[in-house]
């Protein structure tokens, strides 16, 4: 498989953006009661496939920095990868409003699953908490961001 230089540099920079946003807002970015503002970036695969590896690596870096260690590093990052891939697939149906759905659902149900098994946290309660955090990040921030970018012709050239 070969990639263009643009794909690689975009992916690298999206990863950096994700990590920076998670780390700046560290106190609310980790743990069960988290609102990861950086999850707003999960709408990006709607614009460019480079965001799929970008978000994966960004999540990996952010979780190496903080988080629950190996579980978050592997589990959390793989969930992000999968969600990014689904968002990318959704971009074919031209409905930006659907773009934040995969990260919300996959994180709410997936992250809660390993939190439940490792720390015996009540599953449905955790689903609600994680899901709410994701909804706030994705629909209050990510979706408006996506809509703004889609309406600006000059910005669309970057993708």
């Amino acid at each position, binding site marked *: *498989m*070969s*990639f*263009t*230089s*643009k794909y*690689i*540099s*975009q*992916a*690298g*920079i*999206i*990863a*950096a*953006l994700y*990590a*920076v*946003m998670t*780390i*700046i807002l*560290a*106190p609310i970015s*980790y*743990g*069960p*009661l988290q*609102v990861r*503002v950086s999850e707003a970036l999960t709408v990006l695969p709607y614009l460019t496939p480079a965001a799929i*590896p*970008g978000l994966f*690596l*960004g999540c*990996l*870096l952010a979780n*190496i*920095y*903080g*988080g*629950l*260690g*190996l*579980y978050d*590093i592997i589990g959390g990052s793989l969930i992000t990868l999968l969600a990014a891939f689904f968002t990318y697939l959704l971009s074919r149906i031209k409905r930006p409003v659907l773009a934040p759905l995969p990260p919300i659902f996959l994180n709410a149900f997936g992250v809660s699953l390993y939190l439940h098994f*490792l*720390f*015996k*946290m*009540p599953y449905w309660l955790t689903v609600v908490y994680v899901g709410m955090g994701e909804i*706030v*990040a994705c629909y*209050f*921030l990510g979706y*408006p*961001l996506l809509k*703004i*970018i889609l309406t600006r012709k000059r*910005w669309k050239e*970057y*993708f």
Partner: protein
Amino acid sequence: MSIYQDLTIGQYQAQDSIVHRFDPRIKLFFVLVMVIFVALAVNIRLYLLWFFLLLGLFLLTKISLSILLRSLKAFILFFLFIFLLQVFLTSESFGTYFYLGYFQIGTKGIENGIIYSLRLLLFILGATFLSLTTSATELLDGVLKLSSPLKKLKVPTEELSLMSTISIRFIPLLLEEGVNLKKAQMARGADFEGSFIQRIKKTSPLLIPLFISSFRKADDLAVALEARGFQSGKKRSSYQRLQLKWMDFIMAGIIILFSFVSVLLIL
């Protein structure tokens, strides 16, 4: 400078210690083995065993323990949450217990609370140990070497490594830009205060310019890559190669010994 000091990724502490000189693959292997044992077993003696090994390694790093405690501080609420959940929600069938309103509180709940908090502590300490003693580049190098068998499954490990190097390089730049943008927007009268939801919504005047300038940077970077003759899919060499030294083998021996003792403890 002081703004960024707490924010550097990986919180790597450069020191000249034996632990810093270990091969990153060995350190990754250690954390991996520890996490697997800790996740599989609910056994307080096993947790303490690995805890003391971790503590011993920390003492060898010459890094002050206050740095360690600082990184744990962010998780205090999480610890409390897990501990109290166990204390309140474990139902006792034996042992001593009493009722506090609707909840049953007893020795079993407290014991579970300690066990699950200890498990969380070990997970966090493992990751902190890695990031304090291994620079991000070394760590990535190690991860990629360990994941090279994935290349057979058509996973583009080399491209992923280049992407991660780019992102590590750009993290401090973007941090600086974020801080500058915040100041610029505040000078124009932006206000980042308000309720929780409001504050999240108000990050967009910060986010959008940061976003656009990042993509502009990515465009420039792509041109720079092309200009230097970058081609994806070609075999690349690296300036620093990882090589196992004798102390890495000793550490591997210690890990295997501890794993053996852990298996005995589980049985």
